[in-house]
């Protein structure tokens, strides 16, 4: 007697002008219009948002956790990408 699954949507909200949209959660809805209204009604009840994005959850392509080392570890040794790698005398001031 299981009901057919209603599509899942991921919800992203811009909380203030100037900030990026941030993932806040998800909703179920049959189509994009209902998903947008559900996102508004579920996730902006306390003035949390000025703009909403919704994305079908199955449209998100995620990196594989099994690839974590290959994907993200090689960057750890590139310390010359960070400002603290370089020495600037104190008397030169902030740079």
């Amino acid at each position, binding site marked *: 007697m299981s009901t057919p699954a209603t599509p899942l949507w991921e919800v992203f909200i811009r909380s203030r002008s100037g900030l990026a949209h941030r993932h806040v959660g998800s909703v*179920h809805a049959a189509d994009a219009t209902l998903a947008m209204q559900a996102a508004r009604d*579920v996730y902006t009840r306390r003035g949390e948002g000025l703009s909403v994005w919704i994305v079908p959850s199955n449209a998100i392509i995620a990196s594989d956790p099994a690839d974590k080392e290959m994907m993200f570890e090689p960057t750890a040794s590139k310390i010359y990408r960070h400002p603290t790698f370089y020495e600037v005398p104190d008397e030169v001031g902030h740079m």
Partner: protein
Amino acid sequence: MTTTITVAATPLARLALARADDALILGHRLSEWCGHAPILEEDLSLANIALDLIGQARSLYTLAGAVTGHTEDQLAYLRDERQFSNLLLVEQPNGDFALTIARLFLYSAYIDPYWRALGATDSALSDIAAKAEKESGYHLRHSAEWLIRLGDGTEESHRRAQSALDRLFPFTAEMFDPLPDDVAIDPADWTAEVDTILTHATLTRPSPAWQHNGGRAGRHTEHLGHLLAEMQHLQRTHPGATW
């Protein structure tokens, strides 16, 4: 101790009370869905709309009460059925989801342009109207989108949506009965808005042989008395108590 109150009807108080009663009774009806909606997301949506309407009612009662010398709660909880001047449309029981949506849609298609027109005047209600208009715009959109889905969904949902419209249409002309010092909404504009959505919804606008009215004069359907008995029971049982 105050039990039942009677309100001296100045034109402003009559207008504010009529609009407040509409908002409270419809908000109350929608709040009955809380915890019982067909979809969890929709449970939250209906509660949001109910909260908007209860908020509008509170502002309007406060305004009316400033004229008549009452608090918002005295006006909501201590008037009898014959003193409530809400539309018959909004007191109709929730029925199924189609009836709830159709009722909200027919009312919102009237009240949304009404608040916009009123907000542009220098009426004592203009500030309330300017805030309410943003809420009613969403109520109209939400109910219209659902009506389209129900009308153009399955055979069963189409049948239920059409029968909800048939059931409610005889209560729609009352919305256009004039109130004192009020702005008028052209029924033809309302009909055009309703027709646009009904076309998308593949639903037919009913042409009822007659229309009911009487709500503005306190002559209600039998449903309002039960709603008020439930809503007012604590205030009536403990006269003068603070909650």
